[in-house]
């Protein structure tokens, strides 16, 4: 019997705009190849929360999507904060990254409260930060992706960025050369592309943390065939990544 890992896709209906399902697919496949049994749960507003959650993935959405889910997210805030403090690995892209902070002030309309899992706040701006991006992370090395956001995010004291970017006008706010945020095992970032397929190290980090939390240790046990497939996927990711790093903004 392979060990089960329960993965939750957060608000896939309203917050999944830039290929965020690619992140889910990557985690699911890599769990299987490493000898685990992924169980995927989709949670949309109003749904019942599953009995067990080992990892949470969330994506980006438009302002409208954020408004749709905000009330439900606030209802789940305490639960999500509790899971984050326990060390549950989470990856939040773009729109949900913003709402995992303290607040999001859009250009028009009311301020949206965040759920304070990450020490950040976001201010909507007219100018969108759009384009290919490479960031340098202590933990994961070079991370490639694509950013596309008008909200500018600022880190509070004590919150670490996911990585550093080379030039201003990119990253969290176009000013301080940071991108993303990381707290406990929760990663928030503007990088899609999708993020995990081309950056398998981050996917494996999330998987390792989920296994440690549930089973006390991370002991991958791929079959020979699984090992060969993982090798192939990593080689493809490396090729795709090196091309992406050379593309114009």
């Amino acid at each position, binding site marked *: 019997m392979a060990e089960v890992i329960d993965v939750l896709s957060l608000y896939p209906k309203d917050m999944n705009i830039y290929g965020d399902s690619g992140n889910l697919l990557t985690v699911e496949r890599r769990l299987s190849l490493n000898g685990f049994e992924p169980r995927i749960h989709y949670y949309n507003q109003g749904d019942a929360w599953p009995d067990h959650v080992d990892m949470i993935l969330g994506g980006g959405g438009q302002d409208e999507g954020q408004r749709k889910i905000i009330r439900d997210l606030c209802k789940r805030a305490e639960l999500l904060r509790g899971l984050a403090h326990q060390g549950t690995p989470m990856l939040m892209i773009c729109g949900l990254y913003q709402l995992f902070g303290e607040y999001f002030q859009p250009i028009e309309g009311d301020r949206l409260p965040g759920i304070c899992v990450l020490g950040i706040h976001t201010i909507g701006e007219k100018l969108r930060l759009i384009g290919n991006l490479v960031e340098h992370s202590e933990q994961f090395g070079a991370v490639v992706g*694509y950013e596309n956001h008008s909200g500018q995010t600022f880190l509070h004291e004590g919150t670490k960025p996911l990585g550093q970017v080379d030039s201003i006008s990119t990253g969290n706010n176009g000013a301080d050369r940071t991108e993303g945020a990381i707290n406990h095992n929760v990663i928030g970032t503007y990088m899609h592309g999708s993020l995990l397929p081309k950056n398998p190290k981050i996917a494996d980090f999330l998987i390792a943390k989920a296994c440690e939390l549930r089973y006390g240790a991370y002991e991958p046990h791929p079959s020979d065939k699984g090992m060969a497939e993982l090798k192939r996927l990593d080689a493809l990711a490396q090729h*795709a990544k090196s091309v992406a790093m050379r593309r114009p903004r």
Partner: protein
Amino acid sequence: MTSAIGKDRSAKPWYSRMIPLLGKSIRALSRLTRHGGSAFPGKVIEACDPDFLARTLAQLPDGVVLVSGTNGKTTTTRMVSSILETLGMRVFTNPTGSNFTRGVVSALLDKVDMKGNIDADIAVLELDEAYAVHFVHQVQPRYALLLNVMRDQLDRFGEIDNTARMLGEVAKRTTGTVVLNREDPRIAALAQLVPEGTQCAYFGLAPAMRSYFPDDDSMHDDSMHDNTMHDDISGNGSAEPSGKGSAHSPVSQLEVPPSDATETTSDGQQSSQPQLPADVTLNGLVDHGAIFDVSGTILSTTVKLEGVYNLFNAAAALTLVGRIIKASSFAGQGKTIDTQSMVTALSHVTPAFGRGEIIDFHGTPVELVLVKNPMGFRLALASFTPAGHDTMIVINDEFADGRDMSWLWDVDFSTLRKTGVAVVSGVRAWDMALRLDYDQVHVGATETNPSTALEAFLAVNPSHPKRIFCTYTAMLKIRTLISHLTEVADAGL
């Protein structure tokens, strides 16, 4: 009143009479020197004589028709123009897929005589959403057809709602009739912006047809549906029937989807609303053809176009043509056109450049299919059966293609699992190969250089039919490469 210009017409530059000659010369030169795109002469003329576009189009007795939306503009424009021509109208159109204002100016230069007169009754123009806004502030269209809003090149336009807002600008500035897609809630909602005195018409799908057309919103539903398009692989991203709220109500396929922007209540149920009346609906598919309901008459026709989404666009084209004919100079002359002749005219329309066109390569059919956004790619995969073909995919990320590769992750490629993909190419070949591997689709070879890749692809199984899915700039490249190897019709580029 076809066009409203904000400035005094007499204020033409003194050299405006020379503009046609100037433009034509540049056009001839740029063709001779193979100076790539069709927009260069337009660029020069826009700079010298910004009024040229509005002034020239104002001559048309039946005005200007604008076609916009995310998917299907080129083919739909071609259908509308082609049907109108068959019915006896003289049509000016921009058939090259050069759907930027500048491309329209360039095409006009070809069409006007040395005095700047244009020999046409009506202009049928396709424009990208962002350029459509720019255009309608220079020229008010008499008719607008707004097809759909889907995720497309988001890095160029921002977000879906923003795209809908752009198309809303078109609706606001249209003087005669706005034709809207009843099945796309963001498009149907634009009816609220149509000015007083301008009519609103709809095209749509019969309920049984809705399962063929997933939308971007339902694409992210996690529920499983009995559908004819894909195996579900990840429990997500599978094709789903239109009509949101389906996640919790399997019967939603039988219900009428709401006609305007959907409000899903917290339990996922939809407040059901009365269905909007459509002039034309697509009611069924037959082999190489379709069944339409045109104002209550059921008509079946064969078509030369591939792909179920083109048949839905045909319903859009028929709706628009019907409205044009009713209000045109034709009607003034007491002529009437029956629906049967419209539908017959439709059966003769051939695919536009890169929209399922088939090139004969020394006896081997090579089919080119343009893919530019997740929905288009999904529909293309659903429409073209992989069996019996060798498949190649060419993905570029130039400005016209969209730089962001995320869209590939919103397409389910599992339908290619059985046959595999022979060759993957283009600037982002490795992204595509990685994507296919995650869907467990076998890739024969990955080669970023399209020239090398194409030669290898055509050399293997020489007589076996080939199909190439390409992004926009990849399509131009592949066409050029094939034309060096065999005769390819000039796409007017």
